[in-house]
């Protein structure tokens, strides 16, 4: 049995002032109280808005990328001996209702990491561009380990074992693949859970683009050479 009070939902956020409030509200509405916002050096008032909800905020002094924010979340969870860490995008694309599915998958399969899979639920309308980026990123991820699913999903649940074991190094989007590589190397049990996503013009403007894709690919090649 996984208790809701043991789960900390972590939202890595960069300039998300316009949506962070509604994301926090939707998480609260689903019965989760422990929320941490990792502000990745935003220029807007993301932290101030998050603070009005009485939740914890950690702010990186400069923008270092989603990978650095994820590393910070894991380090914080490790220091505070948090049992379960849920990573969720702060741009509103992930549905908070799926938090229950993620937890249930972890419980049922005794998984160490659960990754939200956007491609299982047929109701999800995923833009072709996103499908293409994911396809290419999967190729890079599969160069080292066999992981055929949604390697780039930012919706992830980690248990204490994974929190203690993972030592991530990539600052940018490459962290998604790096986590899978390292988890497989550490023989952690990774499971997928179907999730609902809704892409808006706003969330599409925040994610991967061609330039970021190339940067991610280079960081993955660099990391692969070191592994």
């Amino acid at each position, binding site marked *: 049995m996984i208790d809701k009070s043991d789960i900390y939902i972590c939202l890595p956020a960069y300039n998300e002032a316009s949506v962070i409030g509604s994301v926090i509200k939707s998480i609260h509405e689903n019965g989760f109280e422990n929320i941490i916002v990792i502000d990745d*050096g935003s220029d807007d008032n993301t932290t101030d808005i998050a603070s009005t909800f009485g939740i914890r905020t950690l702010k990186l*002094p*400069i923008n270092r990328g989603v990978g650095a924010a994820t590393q*910070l979340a894991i380090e914080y969870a490790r220091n505070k001996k948090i049992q379960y860490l849920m990573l969720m995008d702060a741009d509103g694309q992930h549905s908070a209702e799926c938090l229950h599915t993620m937890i249930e998958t972890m419980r049922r399969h005794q998984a160490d990491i659960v990754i939200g899979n956007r491609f299982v639920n047929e109701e999800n309308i995923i833009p072709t561009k996103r499908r293409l980026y994911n396809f290419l990123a999967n190729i890079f991820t599969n160069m080292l380990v066999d992981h055929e699913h949604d390697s780039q999903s930012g919706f992830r649940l980690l248990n204490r074992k994974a929190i203690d074991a993972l030592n991530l*190094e990539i600052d940018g989007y490459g962290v998604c693949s790096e986590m899978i590589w390292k988890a497989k190397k550490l023989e952690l049990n990774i499971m997928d859970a179907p999730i609902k996503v809704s892409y808006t013009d706003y969330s599409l403007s925040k994610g991967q683009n061609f330039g970021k894709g190339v940067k991610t690919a280079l960081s993955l090649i660099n990391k692969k050479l070191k592994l």
Partner: protein
Amino acid sequence: MIMDIRIFQILVSFIGIAFVIWTLKNIITQKSSLKDSWFGLILSLLFIMLALFPDAVSHHIANILDFKSNVNAILFLLVGLLSAAFVSTNIRVNQQNRHITKLSKEIALLAEEIKQNKTKV
């Protein structure tokens, strides 16, 4: 023997000497170290030598590297030197990036701890 000096020889050697003097001044006044400046110094000296004695130096380099054409030897040498400089700069930038991320994370964790302690008080 009358030496036919061309404008580029004066210009390149003048810029090269100025750069060497400026670099040495920085090393003496401890604004930079020899460790950080040696590559620039060697490259400047090479350019000065090439400008002053283009045929002799390029012929010598071509002989050492076993190139038939002097120009190809010079190009090969410069591409090699610049590639080495690029790779070493890239390694340094990556190292610095890692340090910056590590420091940023530590600052964020410390700031949160201070905030929590203040709340407790």
